[in-house]
């Protein structure tokens, strides 16, 4: 399927219309800083939650950058960083098969059990 997007909005100007040089020759062989995933605990008693990712040379810098990028307004009291390459994930293409075994076990939910109204504190 070939779809051409002719319409453009703020922040979305097609490259053929920009008159840019298109020159990317100036390629340096500079090594990139690794990518890190950032997890933030917003307050004591809550889980760390994925906040986003960032680039940093090492773990210490990743924690400091995470503070500057993700907690400028006191959004956190604790930060975890994990290098993104260490995250293993389930495959969305297998989701149906992968999560299917749970779908027919409705007896795992309390609402499955029909009990008399007189029964209290349960």
């Amino acid at each position: 399927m070939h779809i051409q997007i002719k319409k453009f909005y703020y922040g979305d100007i097609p490259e053929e219309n920009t008159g840019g040089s298109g020159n990317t020759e100036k390629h340096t062989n500079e090594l990139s800083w690794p990518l890190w995933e950032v997890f933030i605990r917003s307050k004591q008693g809550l889980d760390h939650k994925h906040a986003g990712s960032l680039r940093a040379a090492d773990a210490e810098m990743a924690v400091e950058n995470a503070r500057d990028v993700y907690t400028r307004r006191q959004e956190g009291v604790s930060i975890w960083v994990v290098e993104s390459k260490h995250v293993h994930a389930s495959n969305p293409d297998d989701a149906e098969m992968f999560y299917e075994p749970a779908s027919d076990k409705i007896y795992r939910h309390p609402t499955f059990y029909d009990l008399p109204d007189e029964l209290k504190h349960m």
Partner: protein
Amino acid sequence: MSVIDLEKAFQDKIDKEIKIEPKDWMPEAYRKTNLRQISQHAHSEIVGMLPEGNWISRAPSLKRKAILIAKVQDEAGHGLYLYSAAETLGTSRDQMVEDLNSGKAKYSSIFNYPTLTWADMGAVGWLVDGAAILNQVMLCRTSYGPYARAMVRICKEESFHQRQGFESLLVLSKGSQAQRDMCQDAINRWWWPSLMMFGPKDSESTNSDQSIKWKIKRKTNDELRQQFVDMIVEQVKLLGMTLPDPNLKWNEARKHYDFGEINWEEFWNVVKGNGPCNKQRLAARNKAHDEGAWVRAAALAYAEKRKNRLKTKAA
């Protein structure tokens, strides 16, 4: 599944308001459009620091200086959220930075206008951030998950930008004649470029709008622009200032304000690189990037050295 089935399943998901996540199958054009849009948005945040950074050392008070630094720091943060979102689509940060610095990638043309007086800081916050917010609020519901999440975060922070801008103009509007003149002059210069931020008119497009169908965007350029005009026309009254458009008039039938024709020749000229500050902005980005090269290399070398030292200790 054939490509046609995959595309149908993809569109079904979009229609059911299920977000698309990085590892999900998506049409190549969807990936490319998002990548282009998110990276241009990220570049806009980064280049957007330049016109304001210009005034940090010249802010009229410590309070205004602290506010301006906080705002510029937010913009750096917004650029970083968006670069991360763009990276999930399979490009690298370095490639994006390189495309910006070479002039291949674009950023919002608004940042190619100069900030000539202190009142411009207010006008940029009120009008430019105001226009950006309308776009960004809509993008909080965009179909690509990482982009939508970045936008939610950005919108939370952005409202301070617009409010501080208006408040700063409000102070000027109550000041001396010279301050009031400066305020009006800034509004006069930023009004039309702000309207251009929403992009070409809807009627310029001949194709059916794929971005709307894919729910990358949920409103057209003209819809957003009209929303902006209606909003600003009311707000400017509180400043006791005027907008530089003799054709601005309430249209009772449309229940919207009519406004004059935008200078599209100017718009395309600035997009194509001939705006007042295009060259200056790119030069500033390239200079910063080049001069920072040794810092990036040193940080990596230090990280490597420490890693090796830990290894030796463990052995």
